[in-house]
């Protein structure tokens, strides 16, 4: 469902040019749970932003569901993000002063059609991540792990095919890490395609397959389960 060929990405900052991605080629099948591993600063987030259609690549080609991303304009990319991709960020990115429920509903604001059962759907999702009793809590009243669970519910509200999670457990304690990873595993079982970015081999073990990002390139290596 995802097809990356010879992706390159470099940043130009004044006269300094940083080549972050040099030649990334890999694919993800529908329903797969893939972990992308790499040490800090080697371009994982950059790759994730490209996968999430948030960042233009410098070279190469990216097909999502058979559609060449390069042919889409800004509005079409927005629609695509809204419909097909659920983002889970390392820093949660919930709206302050806004209830868990409204945070979960946020992607629906930008959906082509606002479903009649939006609230029930969002409430159900919050229940499924164990926050059924906290739907009216605001981020300031929730713990880190709870933040991330709200964020996962938000990523799911549009029923996207792909979940992109960039170090979703990076800011969490080990108890919360297990909770979050269990939720992701369950989603995978329910048929979601999940791409998980991490620098932690123990996290990567939850995935069905792990690829390594090193030196701007992707290496497929076996990981002991």
């Amino acid at each position: 469902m995802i097809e990356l060929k010879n992706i390159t990405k470099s940043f130009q900052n004044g006269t300094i040019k940083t080549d972050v991605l040099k030649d990334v080629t890999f694919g993800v099948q529908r329903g797969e749970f893939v972990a992308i591993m790499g040490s800090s600063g080697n371009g994982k987030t950059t790759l994730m932003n490209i996968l999430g259609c948030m960042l233009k690549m410098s070279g190469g080609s990216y097909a999502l569901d058979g559609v060449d991303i390069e042919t889409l304009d800004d509005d079409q990319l927005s629609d695509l993000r809204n419909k097909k991709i659920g983002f889970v960020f390392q820093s949660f990115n919930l709206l302050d002063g806004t209830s868990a429920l409204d945070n979960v509903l946020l992607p629906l604001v930008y959906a082509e059609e606002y479903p009649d059962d939006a609230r029930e759907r969002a409430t159900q999702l919050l229940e499924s991540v164990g926050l059924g009793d906290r739907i009216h809590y605001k981020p300031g009243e929730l713990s880190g792990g709870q933040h991330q669970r709200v964020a996962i519910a938000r990523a799911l509200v549009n029923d996207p095919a792909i979940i992109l999670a960039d170090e979703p457990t990076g800011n969490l304690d080990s108890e919360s890490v297990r909770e979050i990873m269990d939720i992701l595993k369950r989603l995978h079982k329910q048929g979601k395609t999940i791409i998980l970015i991490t620098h932690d081999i123990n996290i990567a073990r939850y995935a069905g397959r792990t690829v390594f990002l090193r030196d701007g390139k992707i290496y497929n290596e076996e990981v002991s389960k």
Partner: protein
Amino acid sequence: MKIMKIVGVSLKSILKHKLRTALIELAILVGIATLTVVVSLTQGANKLIMKRIQNFGPDAIMVHSGGGKMRGPSTAQQANLTKKDISDIENISGVKFATPFQVELDMPLKYDNQFTTSWVMGVEPDWRDAWRRGASKGAFISNSDNEQLSRVCVIGVTTAKELFGKADPIGESILVKNISFKVIGILEKRGQSPAGTDFDNLILIPFSTASRRLMNQPLYTSMLRVIISDPARAKHVAGKISGILRENHRLASTQEDDFRISTAEQIAKMIKSTSKTLGLFLWLIAVISPLVGGIVLMNIMLMAVSERKREIGLRRALGAKKRDIIFQFLTESVVLTFSGGGLGVGVGVIIAIFVRHLGKPISISWQPFATAFVISVLIGLFFGVYPAKKAANLDPVDALNQ
């Protein structure tokens, strides 16, 4: 609907950022209140001018005996307008008719043992058409009254009340300077002038009777009211009248006029010129003040955009299009300016009412409201576009990583 959802987002954000909202609304309030007051003042002044013109008669030209700059009615002693002057003026094309009249101010009147003073005007029947004012009861001064030097009068309601109380004056006789006049009619009510002159404290008597019996000016009249067919040509006709009078009065080119001619336009001009410089200054403030409000709005919104980069980046990541972001921020701006404008109109009207109590002519009608609402929305759009576009054009990845 998506639009309503985004409007909801904007409204929530307005309620959430209270200080920002208060500052913007205050800035717009001041601007719109100023505009409202100035619009009300200007309209009040215009209304006053219109009323003066209406009182004067837009189709009238007044000719007074005696030159110079003095105002008010000419006295019988100054009378220098002849029958020939009148008929020459009536021959000017565009002139419907000219009617002579004389006034004695504060004449003593007596009925029974009641005394009062009022204006006494000698008039011809044309006076009724020239002033659009006839007898509300009884008869008006007729041609035969004038031919026969009849001692009859039409009496204003104030004078009637002074002399007769509630009794019917018609058919009674009153003494004007010891000459007895029979009351034949009651003059239509006119009320007071803005300056406080009571237009109903007067009596009308035949012109000829006034000239010969009261004022002793049998050959002349001191005043003429000329009615023309096209108010737009008043200035032109006034010029012609001036030419004829100078010729008839044999004035050398070095001599000044021995008469005065006034038109509605001149009256209006006179009032306008006194309020013009002030008006310009006020309008300058009225225009600048909302613009300053707009600039404040733009600054605060720009600050809001940079404060809320993360939110914008997040919305973009979750599928907001550029135009959704523009719409969100523009809605915030317009709602803020619109509500600030609404408050501004309220405050402006209160100030306007206050100013009216200080004696300035103020007119409060729908226009200041319409102006304020249109202007405040335009300010919201105009000064809100730049911050909104700036928000929409943020790079989503950069914005999210703030």
